[in-house]
Each structure stands twice: as structure tokens, then as C-alpha cells.
């Protein structure tokens, strides 16, 4: 429904233009019509009084698993969770069941997403057929049905020649490849970051080399193949440094990091808290500091939730047997605010990491409040305090390493294409 | 104010025990810690030839689930056979009778004695079990929330004092 909507008296923060001021926002035909004064002849059909609230572009989450295909009907719930978190655009990785290597599956998923009227869906296609890491998937056909990029989640294909050919093929059609910098053989049986914490807990460790060796491989192959690469979920200081060097060299690289690695360390595992059983693992305080510095100086472009709903049964297990993953859609916004506060970063700069920066990586028309652009935005109360109660999360994943945390910042209205799809 | 001269009370106990055993040589077993001091004195002064046995009744207490073992445990040591033995069990203060019951249970796990008699320095009454003895240094009456504590100084002389003990009062 394309209402004429006016949002009044809000603090408008638009990282894409640097705007941060109290102003009114006018929406028409699903787009931002104006910010500041109403366009001539504008008559609002609905007015939202946003005194004390912030209006920002809706969050664009570069990784949220919706568990469809796989769990029938799961998508609706996860989309509701996204909207409640102020997220208007969601990138879902292809590691669904079955994986997104067939155009029919992608079309069906997009149709379901449209019907759910939740956040916008940006599906990633599989890089290899069946995600088996051996033969190439039909990347061009998949791009025609809406896949923006192609990914091999979890770890690099073991066969480096396959990876090289995939890069060359993608380059042919100028399609970006999203890769997880993980060398599976170096991960081995590891379930936690190698270091004093894993040594104390007796947990098999994942050495930093699992990430750095993978990054070296990616960049070296990229040098010869010339593809556009996005690095998913950095976890280590050395990894950040390798990305920095690659960008300095001029390689076409972008990178993201997941919220848990920005906020927590391996110490937070405590006495085997499976909420902290994550891939990539939480690393040391030095790694977290390097990630924060990297996000701040632009080496890391974007922050994502890495949302992965896991059933309670899969978490109520000994650490080494628990399934990795955490719910994140509903905490992405408040945790971005915590990061801004702890690192004394302006709200506009912090929000850029979850709005215009991910939108730029996707090349999509969203993540901005510029007049004329799609009205995907969130109106939130930056002061509203709330405690993360996992039973109350809208996602099916009632698991979060931030369970019980006292946070500030909560979405009040979430709009997609000018339509109010969530309000509280 | 109760005048508790431990040495003279002990002297009275010694007299009664000597009269009672009339030449027998019972095996002395003291209950940690006060009972052991008394048993050692009796051994020297009755006299009795055999070594003194030591019992720590922690493993036989009936108030175990109320933090019994946190009072600290010392090993029991019985350097003679209990089967068929003539035992004189020695403790400092006889109150509810539960410690004596625990001590007897423990002795029976060492063997089957021919006889067990009991000698105590102070009987403060308040029995909760059918335990009694005539071999007592002195019988006294003290309030429920007061502990009677035996100590021994560097010259091996015995002392008795009364202590206010809120926990005792609460348990009563």
C-alpha cells in the first residue's frame, strides 16, 4: 500500500549522506519523497509522531538464515524477527535444504518472501552444484532469477582448482563471490578458538591459521582470476591485517564481521556456554580489538548478525556436540548502538556499517534516506532499555550469546517500500 | 556463676573410675579431642598399660546432612583388637547422647566388644537417647545456648569454660 506518510520530529540519521539532525521525513509511492520540508501538495494519510525517536535507513543484514527451504513455514517467523529488529533487507546464504543451486528454488523462495511481506530478501546462489565443492553451479541462470552473488558457506572448497575456475567463471559475468575464509583441514575437530581458554576447557582448538591460510589462498587465486570477492565473517587480527593488505594492493575485496566477534571473546564461553558455540569461533581480546579497529577504519565494510536459529535441543548438549549458531536479527540494532557507545563512535558512522555499507556491497537501492530512493527505514527508540529474553524472541532460534543482556535501543516502526510492516 | 575447676573435677572422675574398675585393665578409647586428652590422663594415672584408642565419630554422626563433615575429620586409630575387649569409652561432655551412640556404632564396626563402659568429665543432662553412666566427674545444669568447652594448656593441665553459642540455641 503506498500511503502518503509523514514522520515528524524525529532525529534523522542518514549515514549515506552524513545527515544527523531533527527533521521530518515524507514518504510517497513507496519512496522517500523529501526530508525536511514537505513536498508541494503533500497530504499525509498517516502521521507518525517520532519525538524522541531516531529515523534511520532500515538495516541491511548481510547474513541471516531463514531455514527455508528446509523447515516449512520458517521464513515467515524469521522475517517477523527481522522486522522487529529494524532489519529491512536480509541476505540469505545458499546452505538451505536443499541448497540454492536451482533457479526453481530461488524463485519459490522469493515468492514466499514476497507473500510474507517481511524484509526484502537477497538470496545468494550456491557456488558449486549441491554445495559439494566440485562442479560449478549455474551461476548465470541463478543470477537471472535474482541471486546477487554466489557463495560456498562454511569453508573454502577443498579443491582449489574448483575455486579458481569458479572465480574465473564468475568474472565472466561480473558476478561477485562470497567466501568464508576457513580451511576445513586446519579446523579439524576444533570447536573453539585455539588459545588459553580452549586449553583450559580441554576443547579442541581452531588455530588462526585456519583463517589466514584460507585468506592467502583466496587472494592468491583472486590475483590470477580477477573476480570480485566478499569475505564473510572475519574473526582474527591477522585476518583483518591480510584484508587490509589486499585492499591496499588494489584487489576487489570487501569484508564483513559478525556481531558476536565484535562484542565478545572466547572468555565469554565461561563454563561451556553453548550460546557461544559459533562459527567462526570467538577469539581473543586482541582479535576483537583488531576487528573493532578494522570496522572503524573501513578495512571491514560491514557488520552483520550471522543469524542462525538453532533449536534448544541442539544447544542443550555438551559444547563439542552442540550445533553452532546464534539468533541475531533482533539484537543487531541495539548491539550496534552498544558498539558505538563503547568505542565512542558517532551514531551515523556506526549505523553506516549496517545500512549503506552493506547496501553498497549488494549494489542495491536501499540503506539510505536520500529522496527518490526506496523507503526502507526504521524508527527506533535509542533509549528504550530491554533485557534479551530468549523465550520472547520472535525467531525460532531461542539462543543467543547475549541472553540476559541489558540493552538499549528498540525498533518502534519498520517500513519496507514505504509500507509500515512492523509497529510496536 | 558456675565454678568449673577442670582439674579437680577430673580428680573426682579419676577416683570414681579407679574404684569402679577395681583392678581390671579396660582398654581406653577416647572420643576426639577432649575425650582423648582425658583417656591419656586416665591411662597414666589409673594406670592402664595398653595404648589409648582414638575415635573420630564424623562418619557415624546422625546430623551429617547438616554440614557434618565440614567440621573437619581426623583419622580414628584403634591399636588393639575390639573383639571380646573390655572397653572404657571416654568423652569430655555428655549431653544428648548422640556422640556416644555414634562412638559405639563405630566401635562395633571394629569388632564385637565384651563390654563398653562410659566415663565423662561433665554430664550436662539434656539426654535425647537412653544413654547413662555413673562414671561422671560432675553433673551440671547450663542453658541450652551455652557450650561447655574443654581445653588443655601447654603444661597439659585441663581447663573448662562456658561459651555462648547461638547455633546451639537455634538447634534446640
Amino acid at each position, binding site marked *: 500500500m503506498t500511503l502518503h506518510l509523514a514522520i515528524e520530529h524525529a532525529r534523522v540519521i542518514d549515514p549515506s549522506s552524513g545527515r544527523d539532525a531533527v527533521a521530518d521525513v515524507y514518504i510517497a509511492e513507496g519512496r522517500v519523497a523529501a526530508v525536511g520540508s514537505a513536498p508541494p501538495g503533500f497530504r499525509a494519510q498517516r502521521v507518525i509522531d517520532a519525538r524522541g525517536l531516531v529515523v534511520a535507513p532500515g538495516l541491511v543484514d548481510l547474513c541471516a538464515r531463514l531455514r527455508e527451504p528446509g523447515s516449512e513455514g520458517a521464513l515467515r517467523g524469521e522475517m517477523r524477527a527481522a522486522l522487529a529488529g529494524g532489519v529491512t533487507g536480509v541476505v540469505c546464504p545458499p546452505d538451505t535444504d536443499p541448497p540454492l543451486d536451482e533457479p526453481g528454488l530461488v524463485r519459490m523462495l522469493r515468492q514466499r518472501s514476497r507473500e510474507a511481506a517481511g524484509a526484502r530478501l537477497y538470496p545468494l546462489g550456491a557456488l558449486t552444484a549441491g554445495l559439494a565443492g566440485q562442479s560449478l553451479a549455474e551461476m548465470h541462470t541463478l543470477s537471472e532469477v535474482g541471486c546477487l552473488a554466489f557463495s560456498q558457506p562454511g569453508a573454502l572448497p577443498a579443491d582449489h582448482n574448483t575455486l579458481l575456475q569458479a572465480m574465473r567463471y564468475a568474472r565472466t559475468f561480473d558476478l561477485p563471490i562470497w567466501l568464508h575464509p576457513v580451511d576445513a583441514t586446519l579446523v*579439524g*575437530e576444533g570447536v573453539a578458538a*585455539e*588459545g*588459553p*581458554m*580452549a*586449553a*583450559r*576447557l*580441554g*576443547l*579442541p*582448538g581452531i588455530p588462526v591459521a585456519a583463517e589466514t591460510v584460507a585468506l592467502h589462498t583466496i587472494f592468491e587465486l583472486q590475483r590470477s582470476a580477477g573476480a570480485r570477492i566478499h569475505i564473510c565473517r572475519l574473526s582474527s587480527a591477522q585476518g583483518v591485517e591480510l584484508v587490509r593488505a589486499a585492499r591496499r594492493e588494489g584487489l576487489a575485496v570487501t569484508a564483513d564481521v559478525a556481531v558476536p566477534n565484535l*562484542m*565478545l571473546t572466547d572468555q*565469554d564461553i*565461561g*563454563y*561451556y*556456554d553453548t550460546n557461544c558455540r559459533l562459527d567462526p569461533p570467538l577469539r581473543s581480546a586482541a582479535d576483537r580489538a583488531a576487528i573493532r579497529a578494522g570496522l572503524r577504519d573501513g578495512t571491514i565494510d560491514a557488520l552483520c548478525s550471522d543469524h542462525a536459529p538453532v533449536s534448544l*535441543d541442539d544447544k*542443550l*548438549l*555438551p*559444547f*563439542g*556436540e552442540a550445533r553452532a549458531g546464534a539468533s541475531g536479527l533482533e539484537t543487531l540494532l541495539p548491539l550496534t548502538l*552498544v558498539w558505538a557507545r*563503547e568505542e565512542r563512535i558517532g551514531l551515523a558512522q556506526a549505523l553506516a556499517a549496517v545500512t549503506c555499507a552493506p547496501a553498497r556491497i549488494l549494489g542495491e537501492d536501499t540503506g539510505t534516506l536520500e529522496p527518490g530512493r526506496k523507503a526502507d527505514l526504521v524508527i527506533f527508540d535509542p533509549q528504550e532499555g530491554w533485557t534479551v529474553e530468549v523465550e520472547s524472541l520472535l525467531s525460532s532460534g531461542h539462543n543467543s550469546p*547475549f*541472553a*540476559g*543482556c*541489558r*540493552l538499549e535501543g528498540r525498533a518502534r516502526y519498520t517500513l519496507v517500500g514505504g509500507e509500515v510492516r512492523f509497529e510496536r | 556463676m558456675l565454678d568449673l575447676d577442670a582439674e579437680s573435677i577430673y580428680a573426682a572422675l579419676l577416683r570414681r573410675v579407679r574404684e569402679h574398675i577395681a583392678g581390671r585393665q579396660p582398654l581406653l578409647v577416647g572420643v576426639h579431642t577432649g575425650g582423648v586428652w582425658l583417656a591419656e590422663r586416665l591411662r597414666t594415672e589409673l594406670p592402664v598399660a595398653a595404648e589409648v584408642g582414638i575415635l*573420630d565419630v*564424623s*562418619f*557415624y554422626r546422625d546430623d*551429617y*546432612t*547438616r*554440614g*557434618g*563433615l*565440614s567440621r*573437619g*575429620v*581426623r*583419622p*580414628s*586409630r*584403634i591399636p588393639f583388637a575390639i573383639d571380646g575387649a573390655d572397653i572404657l569409652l571416654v568423652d569430655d561432655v555428655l549431653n544428648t547422647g548422640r556422640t556416644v551412640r555414634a562412638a559405639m*556404632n*563405630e566401635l562395633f*564396626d*571394629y*569388632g564385637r566388644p565384651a563390654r563398653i563402659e562410659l566415663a565423662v568429665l561433665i554430664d550436662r543432662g539434656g539426654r535425647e537417647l537412653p544413654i547413662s553412666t555413673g562414671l561422671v566427674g560432675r553433673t551440671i545444669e547450663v542453658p541450652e545456648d551455652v557450650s561447655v568447652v574443654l581445653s588443655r594448656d601447654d603444661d597439659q593441665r585441663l581447663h573448662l569454660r562456658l561459651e555462648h553459642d547461638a547455633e546451639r540455641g537455634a538447634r534446640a
Partner: protein
Amino acid sequence: MEPALRPTDETRDGPAAGLRAGLQLNEAGELHHLLSTEGLPRPLIERILATADGFIAVGTREVKSVPLLRGRSVFNLFFENSTRTRTTFEIAAKRLSADVYNLNIAASSTAKGESLLDTIDNLTAMQADIFVVRHAQGGAPYLIARHLAPHVHVVNAGDGRHAHPTQALLDLYTIRHYKGEFAPLSVAIVGDILNSRVARSDIHALLAMGVRDLRAVGPLTLLPTGLEPLGLRVCTRLQDGIAGADVIIMLRLQNERMRGALLPSAQEYFRNYGLTPQALRHAKPDCIVMHPGPMNRGVEIDSAVADGPHSVILPQVSFGIAVRMAVLSMVASAPRETALERRRAETAAPGAAP
């Protein structure tokens, strides 16, 4: 993230509310669960050893049992096979007059897919008081401890590579028996430390008792990173590691837990790290040699040493029964009311007498 924002295990609600030192001690500082030697205060360890003294004395009598745990049920939950540890726990529990039930889980319902916590719930419903748990995964006893009703206790009999606290306590008992004071000792732990829960528990226990010269000896592939911060000296040559040692703890080469390319062969290991009479000459003349068992003769230890005058390996076993009796009786003796129950009682009847 600022620590003030995120609750920790100890501040969370639930059955484990109020338990400190890694979910082990109740608010009075008494042992409620035994999960690890890490975090146990030294006075508590000393009390455990003193209590074990008492049980050694009991073991010399005709009647080797005491009535402490009469009427209580001890369930041995062994998810990993181990006849020797399970047997010593069984003997210990029976000498405390407890009713003992042995569950070899591999053959039972969990193999049919029943979850670990469902198994625990079913057994608790059968009036279990104490669970003695051995599991292949580090952290399993913590998962159980967080889940149990307040009056039920867990004793960790070995969890993955993480901890084997009763073994470490009996190792302490053994050292105290032969050497007395801990502080002046040089202690060497030799072998597959990477995969050893005994090593980890020994390290925490020895450091807690004040050992200042503690060495970890083995090839780099068997030594976990992150040991030096704990206060250990790392040695990759046996002779250096045991030079002047008062105590040598030999670890079993963990065949069943070794994965991948860590060692070329048992023979090469023995040549470099096997404790032989010749190697032993580098240690002090009155050095004692310990081993948690079972031994791989000719792999980590030479028979001449295992059966020789320095070896205290057999006494370790009998000390183990007394130490486990001490642990079982101490966890079961902690006052049953926990902070949680007290809080519930208070909120249920405000103003009423506790």
C-alpha cells in the same frame, strides 16, 4: 562488551544459582558438585585430603564401611567405558553404605537417541542423590549440573580432555603421603598433555597447593598452546623436564583420543619420552613415579620403572578409594537448601520466618 551488561553463569537464575567456583561451591563454601580442581580453594583441598586420611584408617579395619551414605543412591553414569575408575567409585560408594547403580550408557537408551538431559531427568525421578559422570565431551558435567535439582550432586569422573578431579586429588594425596610439603617440590608431568584431562586437573591442583616448579614435558604436538600463562615450564626433552624432579607423573599415551598426525609411532615416542631407569637418573634419587593408569608398558614407561622402587603406582589405587569416599561424602553432606530455595521461600511468604 562491558562485563556489566552480560550476566555470567554465577549470576544467572536456575538450578545452579548461587554456586561459585565454577558451579562447585555453595554459598557457605562447601563442596556441592565436584567438576574440576580449577577454582577449588586450598583449604578445601586440604580438608578433602584430611577426610581421606580418615577413610584410609577405615580401610584398615575388618569392617571397611561406614554408614554415612546409607539410604542414598549413587548412580555411576559412564558414557565412556572405564572399568577401573567405575569400580573404584563403586567400591567407594559401597564403603559409604550407599546404594550403587552402574549405567553403561553406550548400551542403553541414549544410544537409542534419548538426550543426555532426558536420561538425567529419568534417573533423578528414581531418587538419585549423586551422579558420578564420565563423558567423552568436555563440559558435559556442567550441562548436567546446571540442570539438576538442588539436592542432587555431580562428581566428574572425567569429561573429554577437560578434567578428572578425583584423579588429581588422589595424586595430591599420594604426593603428600610421600613428600609432605608441596611448595618446595619439583614436579614433572610427562606425556600426552594435549589430550589429557588428568594433566589439566593435576596442573590446577598442584598450583593451588603452592608447587612453584611445575614442568610439562612432551613433543610439541602433544603440548597444548597456552600452558605458560598457567605458570608451567614447558620442556620438549625428557632429561631437561625431569632434571632434579621430586615427583614424576607419567601420562598414558591416549590412543583412543589421539587423532591425526600427532606422533609417528609408539616406538619413537618411547625412545624420546619413555621413562627408563637410565632416564630416571636425572631425577632426584628419592623421586617418586606416578601414573594414573592403565599403563602402556614399553610406550610411556619401562616395566623396570613401573615395578621398581620409585614407583608408587599401586598405592595410588588404594589412595584413590579413600579420596573418592571423601569426595562423595563431602558433596552429599552439604546443607541441602540452596540460595534458590531460600529465595523462593522468602518470596513466597514475605515477612514469614525462614
